[in-house]
Protein backbone atom coordinates (compact mmCIF):
# COMPACT_ATOMS: atom_id res chain seq x y z
CA UNK A 1 0.00 0.00 0.00
CA UNK A 2 1.31 3.43 -0.79
CA UNK A 3 2.40 5.70 2.05
CA UNK A 4 2.40 8.74 -0.17
CA UNK A 5 0.76 9.25 -3.54
CA UNK A 6 1.18 12.32 -5.71
CA UNK A 7 -1.47 12.75 -8.33
CA UNK A 8 -0.96 15.24 -11.18
CA UNK A 9 0.70 17.69 -8.83
CA UNK A 10 1.00 21.27 -10.06
CA UNK A 11 2.54 23.94 -7.85
CA UNK A 12 4.97 26.83 -7.69
CA UNK A 13 5.48 30.27 -6.23
CA UNK A 14 3.67 32.11 -9.01
CA UNK A 15 0.32 30.80 -10.21
CA UNK A 16 1.14 31.66 -13.84
CA UNK A 17 4.46 29.88 -13.77
CA UNK A 18 4.21 26.51 -12.06
CA UNK A 19 7.50 24.87 -11.19
CA UNK A 20 6.12 21.37 -10.74
CA UNK A 21 4.04 20.59 -13.83
CA UNK A 22 1.87 17.55 -13.23
CA UNK A 23 4.01 15.04 -11.39
CA UNK A 24 2.52 11.70 -10.30
CA UNK A 25 4.17 8.86 -8.44
CA UNK A 26 3.84 6.83 -5.25
CA UNK A 27 6.10 5.90 -2.39
CA UNK A 28 5.55 2.51 -0.74
CA UNK A 29 6.35 1.07 2.63
CA UNK A 30 10.07 0.53 3.22
CA UNK A 31 11.25 2.38 0.12
CA UNK A 32 14.15 4.79 -0.16
CA UNK A 33 13.19 6.98 -3.09
CA UNK A 34 15.78 9.31 -4.54
CA UNK A 35 14.64 12.43 -6.40
CA UNK A 36 17.27 13.37 -8.96
CA UNK A 37 17.51 15.90 -11.73
CA UNK A 38 19.45 18.96 -12.85
CA UNK A 39 19.51 22.27 -10.96
CA UNK A 40 16.15 24.02 -11.19
CA UNK A 41 14.30 20.83 -12.07
CA UNK A 42 12.01 21.30 -9.07
CA UNK A 43 13.39 18.74 -6.61
CA UNK A 44 13.28 21.00 -3.57
CA UNK A 45 9.99 22.60 -4.64
CA UNK A 46 8.44 19.15 -4.80
CA UNK A 47 9.51 18.36 -1.22
CA UNK A 48 8.26 21.74 0.02
CA UNK A 49 4.89 21.13 -1.61
CA UNK A 50 4.55 17.71 0.01
CA UNK A 51 5.41 18.98 3.48
CA UNK A 52 2.87 21.78 3.06
CA UNK A 53 5.18 24.78 2.86
CA UNK A 54 3.83 25.49 -0.59
CA UNK A 55 0.19 25.63 -1.67
CA UNK A 56 -0.89 23.23 -4.37
CA UNK A 57 -2.29 24.76 -7.51
CA UNK A 58 -3.74 21.53 -8.81
CA UNK A 59 -3.63 17.82 -8.17
CA UNK A 60 -3.58 16.03 -4.87
CA UNK A 61 -1.30 14.49 -2.30
CA UNK A 62 -2.58 11.41 -0.55
CA UNK A 63 -0.84 10.54 2.68
CA UNK A 64 -1.69 7.03 3.90
CA UNK A 65 -5.26 7.23 2.55
CA UNK A 66 -5.92 10.81 3.64
CA UNK A 67 -5.97 13.75 1.31
CA UNK A 68 -3.42 16.10 2.80
CA UNK A 69 -5.78 19.08 2.50
CA UNK A 70 -8.06 17.37 5.02
CA UNK A 71 -5.36 16.99 7.66
CA UNK A 72 -4.38 19.75 10.06
CA UNK A 73 -0.78 20.79 10.59
CA UNK A 74 -0.24 18.57 13.61
CA UNK A 75 -1.69 15.52 11.89
CA UNK A 76 0.60 16.09 8.92
CA UNK A 77 3.59 16.57 11.23
CA UNK A 78 2.92 13.21 12.88
CA UNK A 79 3.11 11.53 9.46
CA UNK A 80 5.79 13.45 7.55
CA UNK A 81 9.09 14.74 8.90
CA UNK A 82 11.29 17.11 6.96
CA UNK A 83 15.06 17.58 7.09
CA UNK A 84 16.03 20.80 5.30
CA UNK A 85 19.23 21.29 3.41
CA UNK A 86 20.59 23.56 6.11
CA UNK A 87 19.09 23.60 9.57
CA UNK A 88 20.10 26.32 11.99
CA UNK A 89 21.82 24.97 15.09
CA UNK A 90 20.08 26.46 18.13
CA UNK A 91 22.51 28.27 20.38
CA UNK A 92 22.38 26.87 23.92
CA UNK A 93 20.70 23.59 22.97
CA UNK A 94 22.25 20.19 23.50
CA UNK A 95 21.80 17.41 20.94
CA UNK A 96 19.12 15.87 23.14
CA UNK A 97 17.20 19.18 23.40
CA UNK A 98 17.23 19.50 19.63
CA UNK A 99 16.05 15.94 19.01
CA UNK A 100 13.25 16.53 21.55
CA UNK A 101 11.89 19.30 19.28
CA UNK A 102 10.88 16.46 16.97
CA UNK A 103 8.23 15.54 19.54
CA UNK A 104 6.46 18.91 19.16
CA UNK A 105 3.49 17.50 17.17
CA UNK A 106 2.72 15.14 20.08
CA UNK A 107 2.68 17.74 22.88
CA UNK A 108 -0.75 18.71 24.15
CA UNK A 109 -1.58 22.31 25.02
CA UNK A 110 -1.37 21.89 28.79
CA UNK A 111 1.32 19.24 29.12
CA UNK A 112 4.96 18.73 28.39
CA UNK A 113 7.16 15.84 27.36
CA UNK A 114 6.25 12.49 28.93
CA UNK A 115 7.79 9.01 29.00
CA UNK A 116 6.79 8.24 25.39
CA UNK A 117 8.62 11.33 24.21
CA UNK A 118 11.78 10.43 26.11
CA UNK A 119 11.57 6.88 24.71
CA UNK A 120 11.22 8.18 21.15
CA UNK A 121 14.18 10.52 21.58
CA UNK A 122 16.30 7.74 23.06
CA UNK A 123 15.39 5.44 20.18
CA UNK A 124 16.17 8.05 17.52
CA UNK A 125 19.49 8.87 19.15
CA UNK A 126 20.42 5.18 19.22
CA UNK A 127 19.35 4.60 15.62
CA UNK A 128 21.61 7.42 14.47
CA UNK A 129 24.43 6.25 16.77
CA UNK A 130 24.84 9.64 18.39
CA UNK A 131 24.56 8.58 22.05
CA UNK A 132 28.05 9.93 22.65
CA UNK A 133 26.99 13.38 21.39
CA UNK A 134 23.78 13.52 23.45
CA UNK A 135 24.90 16.21 25.91
CA UNK A 136 27.07 18.20 23.52
CA UNK A 137 25.99 21.73 22.52
CA UNK A 138 24.71 21.59 18.93
CA UNK A 139 26.76 24.63 17.97
CA UNK A 140 29.97 22.65 18.53
CA UNK A 141 29.23 19.80 16.13
CA UNK A 142 30.84 19.19 12.75
CA UNK A 143 28.67 19.29 9.62
CA UNK A 144 28.43 15.51 9.46
CA UNK A 145 27.58 15.16 13.13
CA UNK A 146 24.96 17.86 12.91
CA UNK A 147 23.32 16.23 9.90
CA UNK A 148 22.90 13.05 11.91
CA UNK A 149 21.34 15.08 14.72
CA UNK A 150 18.98 16.72 12.23
CA UNK A 151 17.93 13.28 10.97
CA UNK A 152 17.49 12.01 14.55
CA UNK A 153 15.18 14.97 15.18
CA UNK A 154 13.07 13.97 12.19
CA UNK A 155 13.07 10.33 13.28
CA UNK A 156 11.91 11.26 16.81
CA UNK A 157 8.85 12.68 15.08
CA UNK A 158 7.94 9.02 14.34
CA UNK A 159 6.69 9.87 10.87
CA UNK A 160 5.46 7.41 8.25
CA UNK A 161 7.78 9.04 5.76
CA UNK A 162 10.86 11.22 6.04
CA UNK A 163 11.68 13.85 3.42
CA UNK A 164 15.27 15.04 3.17
CA UNK A 165 16.46 17.89 1.01
CA UNK A 166 19.99 17.22 -0.27
CA UNK A 167 21.05 15.34 2.86
CA UNK A 168 24.59 14.90 1.56
CA UNK A 169 25.31 18.20 -0.17
CA UNK A 170 27.36 19.79 2.63
CA UNK A 171 29.29 16.70 3.61
CA UNK A 172 32.62 15.18 2.68
CA UNK A 173 32.56 11.84 0.86
CA UNK A 174 33.04 9.81 4.03
CA UNK A 175 29.91 11.35 5.57
CA UNK A 176 28.02 11.22 2.27
CA UNK A 177 28.38 7.45 2.32
CA UNK A 178 27.72 7.22 6.05
CA UNK A 179 24.48 9.20 5.81
CA UNK A 180 23.30 7.20 2.78
CA UNK A 181 23.97 3.90 4.55
CA UNK A 182 22.07 5.17 7.57
CA UNK A 183 19.10 6.18 5.44
CA UNK A 184 19.12 2.83 3.66
CA UNK A 185 18.97 1.14 7.05
CA UNK A 186 16.29 3.49 8.40
CA UNK A 187 13.91 2.76 5.51
CA UNK A 188 13.04 -0.50 7.31
CA UNK A 189 11.15 1.68 9.83
CA UNK A 190 10.11 4.67 7.74
CA UNK A 191 9.86 5.24 4.05
CA UNK A 192 12.39 7.77 2.91
CA UNK A 193 12.39 10.27 0.09
CA UNK A 194 15.44 12.42 -0.51
CA UNK A 195 16.74 14.71 -3.20
CA UNK A 196 20.26 14.14 -4.51
CA UNK A 197 22.71 15.93 -6.74
CA UNK A 198 25.01 12.98 -7.04
CA UNK A 199 23.38 10.51 -9.42
CA UNK A 200 25.87 7.76 -8.63
CA UNK A 201 25.37 8.11 -4.89
CA UNK A 202 21.59 7.99 -5.35
CA UNK A 203 21.86 4.98 -7.66
CA UNK A 204 24.05 3.15 -5.18
CA UNK A 205 21.79 3.55 -2.14
CA UNK A 206 18.21 4.29 -3.21
CA UNK A 207 15.71 1.54 -3.89
CA UNK A 208 14.00 3.62 -6.54
CA UNK A 209 14.76 6.81 -8.42
CA UNK A 210 12.56 9.58 -9.81
CA UNK A 211 14.20 11.74 -12.45
CA UNK A 212 12.82 15.26 -12.86
CA UNK A 213 13.47 17.84 -15.51
CA UNK A 214 11.79 21.25 -15.74
CA UNK A 215 9.20 20.16 -13.21
CA UNK A 216 8.21 17.05 -15.12
CA UNK A 217 8.89 13.44 -14.35
CA UNK A 218 10.96 12.01 -17.20
CA UNK A 219 11.92 8.62 -15.75
CA UNK A 220 11.03 6.53 -12.75
CA UNK A 221 12.01 3.06 -11.61
CA UNK A 222 14.90 1.05 -10.21
CA UNK A 223 18.31 2.73 -10.39
CA UNK A 224 19.20 0.48 -13.34
CA UNK A 225 16.11 1.60 -15.22
CA UNK A 226 16.65 5.28 -14.56
CA UNK A 227 20.41 5.66 -14.84
CA UNK A 228 20.80 5.07 -18.57
CA UNK A 229 22.77 7.03 -21.18
CA UNK A 230 19.46 8.05 -22.81
CA UNK A 231 17.98 9.46 -19.60
CA UNK A 232 21.19 11.23 -18.66
CA UNK A 233 21.21 12.86 -22.06
CA UNK A 234 17.55 13.83 -21.75
CA UNK A 235 17.97 15.34 -18.30
CA UNK A 236 21.45 16.84 -18.34
CA UNK A 237 22.46 17.04 -22.04
CA UNK A 238 25.61 15.12 -21.13
CA UNK A 239 27.05 12.16 -23.01
CA UNK A 240 27.74 9.41 -20.54
CA UNK A 241 28.40 5.74 -20.43
CA UNK A 242 26.68 3.59 -17.83
CA UNK A 243 28.53 0.75 -16.18
CA UNK A 244 27.55 -1.74 -13.58
CA UNK A 245 29.56 -1.74 -10.39
CA UNK A 246 30.90 -5.32 -10.44
CA UNK A 247 30.47 -5.72 -6.69
CA UNK A 248 27.20 -3.92 -5.89
CA UNK A 249 25.64 -4.49 -9.32
CA UNK A 250 24.39 -0.91 -9.21
CA UNK A 251 24.40 1.31 -12.28
CA UNK A 252 26.80 4.20 -12.32
CA UNK A 253 27.60 6.67 -15.01
CA UNK A 254 30.99 7.72 -16.30
CA UNK A 255 31.37 10.84 -18.40
CA UNK A 256 32.46 10.27 -21.97
CA UNK A 257 35.44 12.29 -23.08
Amino acid at each position, binding site marked *: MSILRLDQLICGYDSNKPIIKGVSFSVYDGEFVGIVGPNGSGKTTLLRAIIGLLKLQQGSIILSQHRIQHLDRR*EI*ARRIAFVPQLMEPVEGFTVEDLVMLGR*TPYFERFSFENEDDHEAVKWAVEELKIENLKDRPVTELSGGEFQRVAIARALAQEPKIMLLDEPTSHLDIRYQVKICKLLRKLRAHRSIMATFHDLNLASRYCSRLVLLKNGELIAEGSPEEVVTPQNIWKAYRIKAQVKKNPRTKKARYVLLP
Partner: protein
Amino acid sequence: MKKKLNKKEEGIALILLAIFLLFAMVLSLFLGSVFLSPTELFQSEILWQIRLPRVILAALIGLLLSISGVILQGILRNPLADPYILGISAGAGVGAAISIVLGAQFVVFGMSSIPATAFIFALIAVIIVYKLAQVAGKTTPETLILAGVALSAFCAAILALIIIISGSLQSIYFWLLGSLSSATWGNVLTVIPYVLIGAGVAYFYSKELNALLLGEEMATTLGVDVENTRLILIGTASLMTAAAVSVSGLIGFVGLIVPHWIRLVIGPNHRLLIPVSALSGMLLMVVADTMARTVLSPVEIPIGIIMALVGAPFFLYLLRRRRIEGK
Protein backbone atom coordinates in the same frame (compact mmCIF):
# COMPACT_ATOMS: atom_id res chain seq x y z
CA MET B 1 30.63 22.57 29.27
CA LYS B 2 27.38 23.69 30.84
CA LYS B 3 25.74 21.07 32.97
CA LYS B 4 22.17 20.39 32.08
CA LEU B 5 19.70 20.54 34.94
CA ASN B 6 17.31 17.66 35.40
CA LYS B 7 13.66 18.15 36.33
CA LYS B 8 14.33 18.03 40.07
CA GLU B 9 17.24 20.46 39.94
CA GLU B 10 15.13 22.80 37.84
CA GLY B 11 12.47 22.75 40.54
CA ILE B 12 15.01 23.45 43.27
CA ALA B 13 16.49 26.33 41.29
CA LEU B 14 13.03 27.85 40.85
CA ILE B 15 12.22 27.52 44.55
CA LEU B 16 15.55 29.05 45.56
CA LEU B 17 14.95 31.95 43.21
CA ALA B 18 11.45 32.44 44.67
CA ILE B 19 12.82 32.43 48.23
CA PHE B 20 15.45 34.95 47.22
CA LEU B 21 12.75 37.14 45.69
CA LEU B 22 10.63 36.97 48.83
CA PHE B 23 13.65 37.88 50.93
CA ALA B 24 14.38 40.89 48.71
CA MET B 25 10.76 42.01 48.94
CA VAL B 26 10.74 41.82 52.74
CA LEU B 27 14.05 43.66 52.96
CA SER B 28 12.71 46.32 50.64
CA LEU B 29 9.79 46.95 53.00
CA PHE B 30 12.22 48.11 55.68
CA LEU B 31 14.03 50.53 53.43
CA GLY B 32 12.78 53.95 52.44
CA SER B 33 12.97 57.64 53.16
CA VAL B 34 11.61 57.10 56.67
CA PHE B 35 13.37 54.50 58.76
CA LEU B 36 11.11 52.52 61.08
CA SER B 37 11.85 49.75 63.53
CA PRO B 38 9.99 46.46 62.86
CA THR B 39 7.38 47.11 65.59
CA GLU B 40 6.76 50.66 64.41
CA LEU B 41 6.65 49.46 60.84
CA PHE B 42 3.95 46.87 61.42
CA GLN B 43 1.70 49.45 63.00
CA SER B 44 2.37 52.09 60.43
CA GLU B 45 0.26 53.18 57.49
CA ILE B 46 3.50 53.57 55.53
CA LEU B 47 3.94 49.81 55.40
CA TRP B 48 0.40 48.76 54.56
CA GLN B 49 -0.67 51.60 52.32
CA ILE B 50 2.58 52.71 50.70
CA ARG B 51 5.50 50.30 50.81
CA LEU B 52 3.73 46.95 50.57
CA PRO B 53 1.60 47.73 47.49
CA ARG B 54 4.62 49.39 45.94
CA VAL B 55 6.94 46.41 46.39
CA ILE B 56 4.29 44.02 45.09
CA LEU B 57 3.58 46.27 42.12
CA ALA B 58 7.31 46.49 41.33
CA ALA B 59 7.50 42.69 41.26
CA LEU B 60 4.42 42.34 39.07
CA ILE B 61 5.67 44.96 36.60
CA GLY B 62 8.97 43.06 36.47
CA LEU B 63 7.10 39.90 35.55
CA LEU B 64 4.96 41.62 32.91
CA LEU B 65 7.90 43.29 31.18
CA SER B 66 10.30 40.34 31.29
CA ILE B 67 7.75 37.85 29.96
CA SER B 68 6.83 40.31 27.18
CA GLY B 69 10.52 40.37 26.36
CA VAL B 70 10.79 36.56 26.27
CA ILE B 71 7.75 36.34 24.00
CA LEU B 72 8.89 39.08 21.62
CA GLN B 73 12.43 37.73 21.38
CA GLY B 74 11.05 34.27 20.66
CA ILE B 75 8.31 35.10 18.20
CA LEU B 76 10.31 37.70 16.26
CA ARG B 77 13.39 35.47 16.46
CA ASN B 78 15.28 38.54 17.49
CA PRO B 79 17.49 38.60 20.59
CA LEU B 80 17.33 42.39 20.82
CA ALA B 81 13.54 42.65 20.90
CA ASP B 82 11.94 44.25 23.95
CA PRO B 83 8.64 46.12 24.41
CA TYR B 84 10.45 49.39 25.13
CA ILE B 85 12.92 49.25 22.25
CA LEU B 86 10.21 48.22 19.78
CA GLY B 87 8.07 51.22 20.75
CA ILE B 88 5.25 49.11 22.17
CA SER B 89 5.62 50.74 25.59
CA ALA B 90 5.51 54.23 24.10
CA GLY B 91 2.47 53.26 22.03
CA ALA B 92 0.75 51.98 25.14
CA GLY B 93 1.72 55.20 26.92
CA VAL B 94 -0.04 57.30 24.28
CA GLY B 95 -3.14 55.15 24.64
CA ALA B 96 -3.15 55.37 28.42
CA ALA B 97 -2.59 59.15 28.36
CA ILE B 98 -5.41 59.71 25.85
CA SER B 99 -7.73 57.69 28.00
CA ILE B 100 -6.77 59.60 31.15
CA VAL B 101 -6.99 63.04 29.54
CA LEU B 102 -10.36 62.34 27.94
CA GLY B 103 -11.51 60.93 31.24
CA ALA B 104 -13.09 58.07 29.37
CA GLN B 105 -14.68 55.53 31.65
CA PHE B 106 -15.73 52.30 30.05
CA VAL B 107 -15.21 48.62 30.50
CA VAL B 108 -14.56 46.24 27.58
CA PHE B 109 -14.33 42.50 28.21
CA GLY B 110 -13.61 43.28 31.84
CA MET B 111 -10.75 45.65 30.98
CA SER B 112 -11.04 49.10 32.44
CA SER B 113 -10.58 52.01 30.06
CA ILE B 114 -6.93 52.89 30.70
CA PRO B 115 -5.33 49.48 30.07
CA ALA B 116 -7.82 48.84 27.26
CA THR B 117 -6.83 51.95 25.31
CA ALA B 118 -3.18 51.32 26.15
CA PHE B 119 -3.57 47.81 24.73
CA ILE B 120 -5.13 49.05 21.48
CA PHE B 121 -2.34 51.56 20.96
CA ALA B 122 0.32 49.00 21.90
CA LEU B 123 -1.08 46.67 19.26
CA ILE B 124 -1.10 49.41 16.64
CA ALA B 125 2.51 50.21 17.52
CA VAL B 126 3.70 46.62 17.23
CA ILE B 127 1.92 46.14 13.90
CA ILE B 128 3.45 49.33 12.50
CA VAL B 129 6.96 48.41 13.63
CA TYR B 130 6.63 44.88 12.35
CA LYS B 131 5.36 45.99 8.93
CA LEU B 132 7.98 48.74 8.64
CA ALA B 133 10.80 46.35 9.47
CA GLN B 134 9.72 43.71 7.00
CA VAL B 135 11.99 43.55 4.00
CA ALA B 136 10.96 40.91 1.48
CA GLY B 137 8.97 39.00 4.06
CA LYS B 138 11.77 38.93 6.61
CA THR B 139 12.71 41.16 9.51
CA THR B 140 16.32 41.60 10.47
CA PRO B 141 17.13 42.50 14.07
CA GLU B 142 18.64 45.83 13.02
CA THR B 143 15.76 47.12 10.91
CA LEU B 144 13.30 46.07 13.58
CA ILE B 145 15.19 48.11 16.16
CA LEU B 146 15.48 51.14 13.90
CA ALA B 147 11.76 51.05 13.21
CA GLY B 148 11.15 50.69 16.94
CA VAL B 149 13.38 53.59 17.86
CA ALA B 150 11.71 55.89 15.34
CA LEU B 151 8.21 54.93 16.43
CA SER B 152 9.23 55.21 20.07
CA ALA B 153 10.49 58.77 19.58
CA PHE B 154 7.31 59.69 17.71
CA CYS B 155 5.05 58.24 20.40
CA ALA B 156 7.06 59.82 23.21
CA ALA B 157 6.60 63.21 21.51
CA ILE B 158 2.85 62.71 21.18
CA LEU B 159 2.69 61.56 24.78
CA ALA B 160 4.56 64.64 26.00
CA LEU B 161 2.33 66.86 23.86
CA ILE B 162 -0.85 65.34 25.30
CA ILE B 163 0.42 65.87 28.83
CA ILE B 164 1.47 69.46 28.18
CA ILE B 165 -1.87 70.33 26.58
CA SER B 166 -3.71 68.76 29.48
CA GLY B 167 -1.68 71.03 31.76
CA SER B 168 0.03 68.66 34.15
CA LEU B 169 3.74 69.03 33.51
CA GLN B 170 4.54 67.07 36.62
CA SER B 171 3.21 63.81 35.23
CA ILE B 172 5.50 63.95 32.19
CA TYR B 173 8.15 62.65 34.53
CA PHE B 174 5.91 59.87 35.65
CA TRP B 175 5.07 58.74 32.14
CA LEU B 176 8.28 59.17 30.22
CA LEU B 177 10.69 58.08 32.92
CA GLY B 178 8.58 55.42 34.51
CA SER B 179 7.81 55.49 38.19
CA LEU B 180 6.18 53.48 40.92
CA SER B 181 5.91 56.41 43.33
CA SER B 182 2.13 56.53 43.23
CA ALA B 183 1.61 52.79 43.59
CA THR B 184 -1.66 51.80 45.25
CA TRP B 185 -3.50 48.59 46.03
CA GLY B 186 -5.80 49.59 43.20
CA ASN B 187 -2.84 49.42 40.79
CA VAL B 188 -1.93 45.99 42.10
CA LEU B 189 -5.47 44.75 41.53
CA THR B 190 -5.49 46.27 38.04
CA VAL B 191 -2.44 44.36 36.85
CA ILE B 192 -3.03 40.99 38.54
CA PRO B 193 -5.39 39.60 35.87
CA TYR B 194 -2.86 40.52 33.14
CA VAL B 195 -0.08 38.86 35.08
CA LEU B 196 -2.06 35.64 35.36
CA ILE B 197 -3.31 35.59 31.77
CA GLY B 198 0.01 36.65 30.27
CA ALA B 199 2.18 34.27 32.24
CA GLY B 200 -0.26 31.42 31.58
CA VAL B 201 -0.41 31.97 27.82
CA ALA B 202 3.36 32.36 27.57
CA TYR B 203 4.01 29.21 29.56
CA PHE B 204 1.58 27.05 27.63
CA TYR B 205 2.94 28.32 24.33
CA SER B 206 6.50 27.48 25.32
CA LYS B 207 6.54 24.45 22.98
CA GLU B 208 5.62 26.64 20.03
CA LEU B 209 8.32 29.13 21.06
CA ASN B 210 10.80 26.25 21.27
CA ALA B 211 9.86 24.96 17.82
CA LEU B 212 10.29 28.50 16.46
CA LEU B 213 13.94 28.37 17.52
CA LEU B 214 14.40 26.31 14.33
CA GLY B 215 12.80 28.97 12.16
CA GLU B 216 9.24 29.52 10.98
CA GLU B 217 9.30 26.91 8.23
CA MET B 218 10.67 24.16 10.44
CA ALA B 219 8.13 25.07 13.13
CA THR B 220 5.44 24.67 10.47
CA THR B 221 6.69 21.20 9.58
CA LEU B 222 6.55 20.36 13.30
CA GLY B 223 2.83 21.07 13.30
CA VAL B 224 2.91 24.63 14.64
CA ASP B 225 0.35 27.04 13.21
CA VAL B 226 2.86 29.86 12.95
CA GLU B 227 0.43 32.61 11.89
CA ASN B 228 -1.95 31.87 14.72
CA THR B 229 0.79 31.53 17.30
CA ARG B 230 2.30 34.83 16.22
CA LEU B 231 -1.06 36.57 16.54
CA ILE B 232 -1.78 35.18 20.00
CA LEU B 233 1.70 35.76 21.38
CA ILE B 234 2.22 39.26 20.02
CA GLY B 235 -1.23 40.10 21.35
CA THR B 236 -0.29 38.70 24.75
CA ALA B 237 3.00 40.61 24.88
CA SER B 238 1.20 43.85 23.94
CA LEU B 239 -1.43 43.23 26.59
CA MET B 240 1.18 42.67 29.29
CA THR B 241 3.13 45.76 28.23
CA ALA B 242 -0.05 47.84 28.17
CA ALA B 243 -0.96 46.75 31.69
CA ALA B 244 2.51 47.60 32.97
CA VAL B 245 2.62 50.99 31.25
CA SER B 246 -0.88 51.91 32.49
CA VAL B 247 0.28 51.87 36.10
CA SER B 248 3.98 52.65 35.92
CA GLY B 249 4.76 54.61 32.75
CA LEU B 250 7.61 53.69 30.42
CA ILE B 251 10.19 51.50 32.10
CA GLY B 252 12.74 50.25 29.61
CA PHE B 253 15.19 47.41 29.18
CA VAL B 254 13.71 44.97 31.72
CA GLY B 255 12.32 42.86 28.88
CA LEU B 256 15.66 42.98 27.11
CA ILE B 257 18.12 42.30 29.91
CA VAL B 258 16.30 39.61 31.84
CA PRO B 259 15.52 37.04 29.11
CA HIS B 260 18.86 37.64 27.45
CA TRP B 261 20.82 37.01 30.58
CA ILE B 262 18.76 34.05 31.71
CA ARG B 263 19.10 32.46 28.27
CA LEU B 264 22.87 32.67 28.54
CA VAL B 265 22.74 30.88 31.88
CA ILE B 266 20.08 28.19 31.40
CA GLY B 267 19.70 27.94 27.62
CA PRO B 268 16.77 28.78 25.34
CA ASN B 269 14.26 26.10 26.43
CA HIS B 270 11.17 28.24 27.06
CA ARG B 271 9.62 25.77 29.47
CA LEU B 272 12.32 26.85 31.94
CA LEU B 273 13.21 30.23 30.45
CA ILE B 274 9.72 31.62 31.08
CA PRO B 275 9.38 30.89 34.82
CA VAL B 276 13.02 31.76 35.55
CA SER B 277 12.74 35.03 33.60
CA ALA B 278 9.51 35.85 35.42
CA LEU B 279 11.10 35.44 38.86
CA SER B 280 14.29 37.21 37.81
CA GLY B 281 12.35 40.11 36.32
CA MET B 282 10.42 40.46 39.57
CA LEU B 283 13.66 40.40 41.54
CA LEU B 284 15.34 42.95 39.29
CA MET B 285 12.44 45.39 39.58
CA VAL B 286 12.18 45.03 43.35
CA VAL B 287 15.89 45.77 43.69
CA ALA B 288 15.77 48.64 41.20
CA ASP B 289 12.76 50.20 42.92
CA THR B 290 14.42 49.91 46.32
CA MET B 291 17.40 51.75 44.88
CA ALA B 292 15.08 54.34 43.35
CA ARG B 293 13.67 55.06 46.80
CA THR B 294 16.85 55.02 48.82
CA VAL B 295 19.94 56.02 46.82
CA LEU B 296 19.25 59.78 46.80
CA SER B 297 16.82 59.73 49.72
CA PRO B 298 14.74 61.77 50.46
CA VAL B 299 14.69 62.56 46.74
CA GLU B 300 13.27 59.71 44.70
CA ILE B 301 14.70 58.75 41.33
CA PRO B 302 12.17 57.47 38.79
CA ILE B 303 12.82 53.75 38.36
CA GLY B 304 12.97 54.16 34.59
CA ILE B 305 16.15 56.19 35.01
CA ILE B 306 17.81 53.40 36.95
CA MET B 307 16.79 50.82 34.38
CA ALA B 308 18.05 53.01 31.53
CA LEU B 309 21.36 53.64 33.32
CA VAL B 310 21.89 49.89 33.59
CA GLY B 311 20.03 48.75 30.49
CA ALA B 312 21.30 51.08 27.79
CA PRO B 313 24.99 50.14 28.23
CA PHE B 314 23.95 46.48 28.30
CA PHE B 315 22.04 46.94 25.05
CA LEU B 316 25.03 48.62 23.41
CA TYR B 317 27.25 45.80 24.60
CA LEU B 318 24.90 43.26 23.00
CA LEU B 319 24.82 45.20 19.74
CA ARG B 320 28.59 45.31 19.64
CA ARG B 321 28.95 41.65 20.53
CA ARG B 322 26.59 40.72 17.69
CA ARG B 323 28.67 42.76 15.25
CA ILE B 324 31.90 41.18 16.40
CA GLU B 325 30.48 37.69 16.14
CA GLY B 326 29.02 38.63 12.76
CA LYS B 327 25.57 37.37 13.63
